[in-house]
């Protein structure tokens, strides 16, 4: 059970009165390898986040394949449900940002949205209880995919020279402002965009998981105080009950944040793609 590193090292047992509060830190995101794949030169550690990420891929693929393998004109059952999700991405993200041009990118955006969402939702699924996107590598890979896609589309639609010229020298500016504007524009389009895309998703899931863990641990820890007699024990019970309810409320709040972050990730991808399709005039 104690598969993560930091809390496993806390030696306190329940009812131990001299035990300090085992505050969860960055350690709860470090997992021990369940097994290792040896590839000769290097070896790959299979940890819980890796298994959950593979599970997310399987879930998303299976649901969409089951829904759309034999599509019917009048949808029934699962196809009905999944079509609502597909239409949400098409109408609220792709068409809202890119207009009719967006229809080409709906499959990409839909896969992105549902994959990110499933990875986030793993935070509150019992037994899993770990947001896969709070391991930095997963959002980084997704952001890199988005980065390659919008750079490629920009170079394809505006020409290699034209695209970078449009980034560095946005037309219609007074000539004196370019020394100031060019470094900012180049830096923000090439570097800051993918970096903040990855950090935003990672940091939100990291913070959310940490917050839930702090209140879960404190519900357990304050119950510990009830071994004292009298007033301290009453405080312990009250604190423990409050912490437990805060955990439940936070879980509901996290559900909202998870969907919102998946939405924002996809929305920003659509904005980046849209800026690559047409040069600013």
């Amino acid at each position, binding site marked *: 059970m104690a598969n993560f590193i930091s809390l496993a090292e806390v030696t306190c047992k329940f009812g131990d009165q001299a035990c300090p509060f085992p505050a969860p*830190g*960055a350690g709860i995101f470090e997992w021990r390898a369940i097994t290792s794949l040896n590839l000769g030169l290097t070896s790959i550690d299979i940890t819980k986040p890796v298994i959950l990420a593979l599970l997310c891929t399987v879930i998303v693929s299976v649901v969409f394949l089951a829904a759309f393998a034999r599509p019917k004109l009048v949808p029934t059952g699962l196809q009905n449900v999944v079509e609502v999700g597909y239409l949400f991405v098409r109408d*609220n993200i792709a068409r*809202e*940002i890119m207009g009719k041009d967006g229809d080409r990118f709906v499959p990409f955006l839909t896969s992105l949205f549902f994959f990110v969402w499933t990875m986030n939702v793993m935070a509150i699924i019992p037994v899993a209880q770990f947001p896969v996107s709070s391991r930095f590598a997963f959002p980084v890979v997704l952001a890199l995919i988005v980065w390659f896609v919008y750079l490629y589309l920009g170079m394809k639609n505006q020409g290699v020279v034209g695209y970078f010229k449009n980034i560095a020298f946005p037309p219609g500016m007074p000539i004196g402002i370019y020394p100031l504007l060019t470094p900012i524009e180049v830096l923000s389009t090439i570097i800051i965009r993918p970096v*903040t895309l990855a*950090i*935003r998703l*990672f*940091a*939100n899931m*990291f*913070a959310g998981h940490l917050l839930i863990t702090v209140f879960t641990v404190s519900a357990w820890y304050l119950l510990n105080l009830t071994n004292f007699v009298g007033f301290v024990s009453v405080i312990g019970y009250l604190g423990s009950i409050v912490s437990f309810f805060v955990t439940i409320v936070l879980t509901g709040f996290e559900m909202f944040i998870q969907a*919102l972050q998946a*939405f*924002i990730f996809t*929305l*920003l991808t659509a*904005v980046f793609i849209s800026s690559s399709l047409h040069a600013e005039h």
Partner: protein
Amino acid sequence: MMILAEITGSLGSIGYGLAAIGPGVGIGIIFGNGVQAIARQPEAYGVIRQNMILGFALAEALALIGFVAPFVFGA
């Protein structure tokens, strides 16, 4: 070297507090003006909400970087 003033303890928390000031003000402005815009022109709800969330995401990133920095660079 003579130390004139020193802060000890959880510097990461202080750093996060400082990092949250700007985005806090920014997010307040974004949603305040967004709600006002929706109240004035309810039929433009879709477009306004889209841009509201976009601006929120960009402002929020700064606060989140402040939250993650202490974990990344050590307390």
